[in-house]
């Protein structure tokens, strides 16, 4: 056996490493993508009063703090015995969440994946980055920044602060929207919807331009898990769990999130800090699945907003047999359909007078367990807390989106390596393609990481005895 190791090391938690294993026939038999999941969270949160959780959990991640904030707040609703928060509170939270998903998807497309998509995967790396996009597609890059800025403004207004606000509290929210705040968001929303629609169109063209290649690159057939709303609608904030198999047939549907432990289990591997979730009824080997935009757009029966629904139908028509779209690169397309859905939903919500209402919280009888589930930008996010009689947290369990996609990312990497690795030579295009495959999932590898102190990419080729055969070293920017 020959092991090929790709070890990109970045600051704090951006540590990732790929190990490819070949057999004697040089076929890829296994791919292991190791990333350092945030550890120590239980220690961090244990003994804290439950009401601190929605604020504390935001410190887990600098990328999607609002998703953690809202998932924790939903769990806290249960702890304070509230099954239904007031309409104003729910709509403020939904607005906040749409802002979060919009800005996150905008960042991913315009900043992270558009260089791959626009320039192709074999383009020179120095060109294939955001600066390349800026030079070649100046308007696109500008729109990306301003879309992101708009999403952040929605978050600021709904949560009270630009960074790590306190908007959602147990049982509701702590502020509504003023007329001035609503008006300020309404000023730009038509432009935001237009840009979002254009981005889906662009993505569709990119996908269809190289349809066969796009459909095959890093593609794997998987089950898919997501929330769905009433009638099977696309749902990001609250709903029930639906899992569909590789052919699109329902494995389970309309399952309460409170029962997630009956549906999902987590497998542990000695070589990874990350767990491997699987559907209990199918077992470890067969039960792994994907979450995130691809799963959500495949799993839902319709989208409430007209423009996004139109795009969903075009997306689904790519698969003439009615089966799910399994192309890994279709994550990008699905993500932008959701971007459009969020923009349309924000526009719709801003016309809703409930955002200005005064009933912000509900109250109930204290309970000892709370489970909050939300569709974060990267996929389904579970927060589960238990407290003692004093309201101090005794146990916390989180399953984050990237963890759900753990096995799927390994399989996509294996597929790329199998298709593109010739012999035992690691090439620059291969490294690029492995990164492109990972990037499609938008994994959150870099909670609270910055670029300072960033380490270069190192690639090792080891033989069966563990002896280094070759090393490839990739400095940032090269």
């Amino acid at each position, binding site marked *: 056996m020959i092991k090929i190791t790709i070890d*990109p090391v*970045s*600051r*704090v938690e*951006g540590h*990732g490493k790929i190990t490819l294993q070949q057999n004697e026939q040089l076929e890829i038999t296994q791919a292991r993508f190791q990333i350092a999941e*945030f*550890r*120590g*969270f239980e220690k*961090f949160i244990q003994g804290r009063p439950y009401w601190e959780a929605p604020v*504390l959990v935001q*410190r887990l991640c*600098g*990328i999607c*703090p609002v998703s953690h904030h809202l998932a924790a707040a939903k769990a806290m609703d249960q702890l304070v015995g509230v099954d239904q928060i007031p309409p104003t509170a729910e709509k403020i939270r939904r607005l906040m969440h749409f802002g979060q998903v919009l*800005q996150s998807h905008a*960042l*991913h497309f*315009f*900043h*992270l994946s558009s*260089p791959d998509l626009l320039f192709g995967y074999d383009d020179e*790396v*120095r060109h*294939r*980055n*955001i*600066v*390349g996009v*800026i030079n070649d597609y*100046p308007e696109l*890059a*500008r729109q*990306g*920044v*301003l879309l*992101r*800025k708009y999403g*952040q403004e929605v978050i600021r207004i709904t949560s009270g602060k*630009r*960074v790590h606000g306190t908007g959602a509290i147990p049982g509701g929210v702590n502020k509504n929207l003023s007329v001035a705040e609503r008006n300020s968001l309404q000023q730009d929303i038509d432009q935001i919807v237009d840009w979002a629609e254009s981005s889906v169109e662009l993505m569709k063209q990119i996908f269809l331009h190289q349809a066969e290649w796009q459909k095959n690159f890093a593609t794997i057939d998987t089950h898919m898990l997501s929330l769905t709303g009433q009638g099977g609608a696309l749902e990001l904030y609250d709903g029930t769990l639906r899992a569909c198999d590789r052919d699109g047939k329902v494995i389970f549907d309309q399952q309460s999130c409170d029962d997630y432990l009956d549906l999902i289990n987590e497998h542990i591997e000695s070589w990874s800090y990350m767990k491997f979730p699987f559907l209990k009824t199918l077992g470890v080997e067969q039960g792994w699945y994907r979450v995130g935009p691809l799963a959500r757009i495949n799993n839902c029966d319709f989208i409430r907003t007209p423009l996004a629904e139109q795009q969903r139908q075009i997306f689904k028509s790519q698969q003439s047999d009615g089966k799910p779209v399994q192309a890994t690169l279709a994550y990008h397309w699905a993500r932008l359909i959701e971007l459009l859905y969020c923009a349309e939903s924000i526009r719709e919500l801003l016309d809703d007078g409930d955002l200005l209402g005064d009933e912000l919280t509900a109250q109930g009888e204290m309970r000892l367990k709370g489970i909050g589930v939300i569709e974060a930008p990267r996929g389904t996010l579970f927060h589960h807390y238990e407290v003692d009689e004093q309201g101090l947290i005794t146990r916390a369990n989180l399953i984050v989106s990237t963890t759900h996609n753990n096995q799927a990312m390994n399989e996509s990497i294996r597929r790329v390596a199998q298709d593109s690795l010739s012999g035992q030579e690691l090439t620059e295009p291969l490294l690029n393609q492995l*990164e492109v495959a*990972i*990037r499609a999932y*938008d*994994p*959150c*590898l*870099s909670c*609270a*990481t*910055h*670029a*300072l*102190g*960033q380490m270069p*990419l190192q690639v090792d080729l080891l033989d069966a005895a563990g002896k280094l055969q070759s090393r490839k070293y990739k400095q*940032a*920017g090269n």
Partner: protein
Amino acid sequence: MLIFAYGNPSRGDDALGPALLDEIQQIAAHTRLAFELEFLSDFQLQIEHATDLHRHDRVLLIDACAETTMEQAWRFSVLSPDTSTAYTTHAMSPQQLLGVYQQVYGKSAPPVFMLALRGQLFNLGEPLSEQAQIDLQQASRFCWQLLQQPDLQVWLDLAAK
């Protein structure tokens, strides 16, 4: 001038940037300075921060640095746009931020300086390490001297050292 510190206050020495910003803000509240200061703190750099650089004639970024080879408590430098690309999917370099600025506004960003603070321990839930607390005081003194110097050339000279 904008002073923008970034880092996660709940991750050990990653809190160095926000901690220094707090100190500066407290002192600035009671002191007349050569600059009109605006303060910003966030967990990490993102593309929309390009819009925060706008309408400032100078920017000071402050961040913890995980380089273990740093001999001093801090390192002061001037930044220029860079085309570096990162493996990590969400990290953004300050140099890339300048590139984004150029696109959005069609001109070069104002002079942007980086004050990198030596950090060693970045565990979730941990406070600043003892060494980081000592380093913070040194960096604070340097930063304060810097803010007494309105002349851009002085900053450039210091950054070139």
